[in-house]
């Protein structure tokens, strides 16, 4: 198997509404994603991050350009790509356990792989909450359930759209560690979207900086800091300064939310 799991080649995605307002959500995006890496897209809101993840997931199609998964063009959804949507999207009518088991059940693999459900509930630390419904658990727990639900199908790539966006910083740090642990466990390639610079540096092997209007790739940075990473370390801080500078330069007007 090739070292490149996903090839994005010259992808354009333009939205136009009835009044002929045209938004160039993605402009000429090209990128190769390496097998097993942790890749993060960072950028202000509106620079096309969600649009790109939806294209990779197969929920949307580009106007031009190609997305190749293991050399084959992506066409529609498939279980080799897991997708954790921005708000988690748990099914409110299913318990934690049934949410996690959903992928196995719809594919008729549940009877054979029941043990996986138990394993994932344990991995995300939700023992004892199997029978709870989504509205009965905290936001952090719900996100962990959403991640486990996507991982149960053993996807080649896990797509995460701001999974920690709405959480407090303690819960956030907790889930970040959990993500690294789950990545080690499953070996999946992870593609994360975030607008938190610290989160990007803490987790990623590579960081892709995006800029809006039109959405394009500004820079790709390697993060060469060994794990476990220390958020106050010298290299960490230097990298952070570098990214903040690029983000400020990258957007027309400085966005206060990045000057954390």
């Amino acid at each position, binding site marked *: 198997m090739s070292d490149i799991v996903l090839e994005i080649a010259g992808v354009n995605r333009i939205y136009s509404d009835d009044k002929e307002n045209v938004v160039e959500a993605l402009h000429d995006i090209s990128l190769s994603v390496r097998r097993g890496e942790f890749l993060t897209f960072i950028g202000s809101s509106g620079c096309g991050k969600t649009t790109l993840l939806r294209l990779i997931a197969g929920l949307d199609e580009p106007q031009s350009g190609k997305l190749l998964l293991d050399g084959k063009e992506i066409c529609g*959804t498939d279980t080799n790509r*897991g*997708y954790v949507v921005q708000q988690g*999207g748990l099914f*409110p*009518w299913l318990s934690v356990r049934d949410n996690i088991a*959903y992928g196995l059940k*719809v594919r008729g693999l549940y009877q054979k792989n029941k043990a996986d459900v138990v394993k994932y509930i344990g991995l995300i630390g939700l023992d004892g909450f199997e029978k709870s*419904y989504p509205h009965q658990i905290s936001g952090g727990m719900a996100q962990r359930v959403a991640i486990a639900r996507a991982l149960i*199908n053993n996807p080649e790539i896990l797509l995460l759209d701001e999974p920690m966006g709405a959480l407090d910083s303690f819960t956030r740090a907790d889930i970040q560690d959990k993500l690294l642990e789950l990545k080690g466990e499953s070996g999946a390639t992870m593609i994360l979207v975030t607008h938190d610079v610290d989160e990007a540096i803490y987790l990623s092997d590579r960081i892709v900086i995006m800029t809006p209007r039109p959405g394009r790739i500004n820079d790709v940075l390697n993060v060469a800091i060994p794990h476990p990473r220390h958020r106050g370390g010298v290299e960490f801080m230097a990298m952070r300064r570098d990214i903040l500078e690029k983000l400020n330069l990258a957007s027309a007007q400085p966005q206060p939310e990045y000057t954390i």
Partner: protein
Amino acid sequence: MKYKNLSALRFVLSVALTIAGFVSAIIVNAAVPQAAAVKINRYEYFGGTLDFNILYRYAAAGIIILYLGLAVFAYFSEERRVNYVKRAPFRFALGVALALWDILGTKYLLLPQPFFPGPAAILETFLNEPAFVLENTLYSLKLYAAGFTAGVTFGVGTGILIGWFPRVYYWVSPVLKITGVIPAVAWMPFALTLAPTPFTAAVFLMTMCAWFPIASFTAQGVQSTAKVHFEVAKTLGANTAQLVFRVAIPHALPQIFGGISMANGFMFTTLVMSEMMGQPGGLGYYIQLSRVWSAYYKVFAAIIIMAALFSIILYIIGIVQNRALRWQKGLVK
């Protein structure tokens, strides 16, 4: 009224109050002399003689035993004790009302007769023709079961199609809306002529009256399913059928139950109306038959059976609904 820290004395007094009304009903029935000339028939049952007064006293005693049993059950939980105490004045009034009714309706015949017989006289129905009453009750139950099943199946089925396929929505929803404003019994002449049996005619009418509420609520529930849930299901490997049965329908379930609850009331009405207008049996038929003979005490008896039957049905539907929607507990309201 305050019910916090309910004292034991208060509870005991409430139990006494609850049964006092029914005790007074028994005493009144036994002690007040029969002033008006009312024919009191005697019936042979279980190797003894019964008349309606004796049956009535047994029934009141039965209610007393029931409430004493409930008191024992309630004693072990604060919440149930409070509820029991809250209901005591009403239950007392119920017993007193029975006693008053007995005096006015049977003992002195002060109410217009034969339209308002006393409570004891109503019970004569069950001494007079118990087998016939049971037969008609079972007919109503059978008709309800058939009509309910047909109405819910058809309503939910078409509701899903209307909610899922825009084309079906376009063609069917105007028809649905029109039938929604027409009371189903208006179709009775057609139903009775065209349906092979009166029974199927009534089932058809019940289906018609249930169609609008059930189908439109179901369609609404399906249509309001969040796009994100469909997308998540797709990425997890769900096919189109699973998007319907494992996303849209579970999401629509609260609305489906809302539609069924609403339709259920219409179905009761349609059931009784069709029985009164051309069924060979049923409680509605029994009411009609009794009316012809001016046996109004039997009309009352049929109404009491209906009330009990429909309450039990509503209770059962409530249990099923709570079970199916338990994921909503604490989510709404």
